């Protein structure tokens, strides 16, 4: 029998410092069969367990799209034991990875629709995978609007890509920082994400909104969306309950009877609202 806890070994190809405490790893499978197995299953929105051997495992989403098959990426903030150990690693080092786990964004159902991405802080990575996925298949989708905010300018991740998206004529990018978080040369908006969303007032017709961010941001963004005319069925988000196995066995990620590692992390708002407030 196969050991479901055995990770694949991955080589760190590249380390990018997004902010003083947030890093992006570009990772390559050391074993080609494992790589093929991953890409035959992987869909945007899924997550994995990443480990610095000796420090345990951490759950991060896969931040790169399945349309780029030579590597995977993850972006993570150093908050605890394993994330700090990972951040201390360098190019060419080996880490462990298990995945892909969980459900995914139903982007096939979204073909022909406009997409509105709303992200706060470190929660851009799961959306980034979707954004690149649809940008790589641009003609399948309608308008793309991205509203991204962070506490301060230095907390914005993927600065290079933000520039790239900004240049793209068919992407509407709005960046914002919390009041007081701006620098003298900041050209974006100043204000909290829900407020900026309300001002931008994107149309709800034929549009899917995908919201990722800290619980507080999500809580204040949902009402704004419904004010703008979005029905719950048009709104998607992700949950980040604490996980260990990622496989529906260790018993810690459930929200009521729903296991976030199996039935999530992606939830449509109407489904989410039926769950007990245990996240």
């Amino acid at each position, binding site marked *: *029998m*196969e*050991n*479901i*806890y*055995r*990770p694949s*070994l991955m*080589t760190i190809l590249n380390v990018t410092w997004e902010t003083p405490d947030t890093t992006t790893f570009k990772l390559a499978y050391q074993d080609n069969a494992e790589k093929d197995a991953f890409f035959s299953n992987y869909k945007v929105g899924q997550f994995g367990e990443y*480990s*610095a*051997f*000796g*420090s*345990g*495992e951490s759950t991060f989403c896969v931040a790169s799209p399945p349309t780029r098959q030579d590597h995977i990426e993850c972006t993570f903030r150093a*908050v*605890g034991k394993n*994330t700090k150990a990972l951040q201390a690693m360098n190019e*060419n*080092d*080996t880490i*462990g990875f298990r995945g892909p786990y969980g459900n995914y964004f139903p982007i096939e159902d979204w073909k022909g629709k406009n997409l509105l991405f709303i992200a706060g802080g470190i929660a851009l990575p799961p959306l980034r995978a979707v954004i690149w996925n649809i940008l790589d298949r641009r003609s399948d989708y309608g308008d793309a609007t991205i509203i991204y905010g962070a506490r301060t300018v230095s907390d914005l991740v993927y600065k290079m890509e933000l520039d790239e998206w900004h240049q793209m004529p068919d992407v509407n990018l709005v960046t914002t920082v919390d009041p007081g978080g701006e620098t003298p040369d900041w050209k974006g908006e100043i204000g909290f994400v829900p407020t900026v969303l309300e001002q931008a007032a994107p149309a709800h017709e034929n549009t899917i909104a995908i919201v990722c961010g*800290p*619980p507080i941001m999500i809580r204040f963004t949902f009402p704004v969306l419904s004010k703008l005319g979005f029905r719950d069925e048009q709104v998607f988000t992700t949950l*980040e*309950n*604490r996980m*260990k*196995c990622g*496989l*529906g*066995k*260790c*018993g*810690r990620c*459930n*929200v*009521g*009877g729903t296991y976030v590692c*199996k039935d999530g992390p992606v939830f449509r708002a109407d489904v989410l609202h039926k769950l*007990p407030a*245990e*996240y």
Partner: protein
Amino acid sequence: MITINTNSLGKLLESARSAGYRFVAPVRDGTISLFRPVDRIQEIALDLITPVKSPKEYFFSDHECILSYKRSGKSLIELSEPSKEDYAPPTVIFGCRPCDAAGPGIIREVMTWDCDDKFFLDRLESTVIITIACVEADEACYCTSVDMAPDSETGSDILLTPSKDKPGVQQEYLVKAVTEKGSRFIEQTKGWSDGTVNPAPAIEGLKSSMKPTFDAERVRKWLDTSFEDKFWDTATLACISCGTCTYTCPTCHCYDIIDEGNTDGGKRLRNWDACMMELFTLHASGHNPRPTKSNRFRQRLTHKFKYYPDLFNRILCTGCGRCQRYCPTDHALKNLLEQIDKLVSTESQAAEAVDK
């Protein structure tokens, strides 16, 4: 059907051991009781209602290595795994009560949910569970309230049914092979049987005297709509949020995964963990979806009597009574289940009265 006398149990142990099985049975050690490998039949304590620790640890160890890693070059890592021979030796678990025998089969549902946990399954496969039906229960026991009975065969490979309705006396046990594995074991180790008979069911007495004390289905329905009920806060005040109930429980199966070692080499372990622990769900950000012990106890009760049954159609409890017997504050799960049941019946009576 074949039988075995109390006096011949030693022969059963001998033949199992010479067939290569580790023989695990309930024993007393000082003031504690547990399942442990034994060499001699005299070591076994068959008079215990249940040992403090359930035999769960023989399928799902309180700590076990699931992976080893070693640095094999400047930036290279080599992985290895414990071998099945080491973690899943052929084992007989003898003298289980039906409530303990049922545990592993119930946990099996989650351990095979979409993918298989080999550490659990390999052990289950290499273990023969020999159960003795009960002729004695205590106030904490409640198997009959959770779809079980003092003579349930659920989860057993072989069930021994005593001939006399009394504890502590010489018995002529009726031996029933419940599973294929059980038959094979009897075939493989025979020589211990004392002949064949056709005795009457012996423990009808206990079965009929152990009336269910709550209706699990009614509790489940109440749970459907009572996540926010104020019941939880007042009913859970006495709980101290420790791990006693979950760790002694034959059906609790939650775990943690941690590394022990340094960057050059070490082990990845899977350790018991429990929803009653405050850290269980704590996010790295400091946010905790279940910050209070009332939230945590609600999870424990609801997991057992609603979430698990909803998913796998089985109650995650065998009524063994440990969580009551060993709770430091007598904060019994059974007590809460009965309270809920009573709440439902008074509510429905009140509703009926209004209807009339």
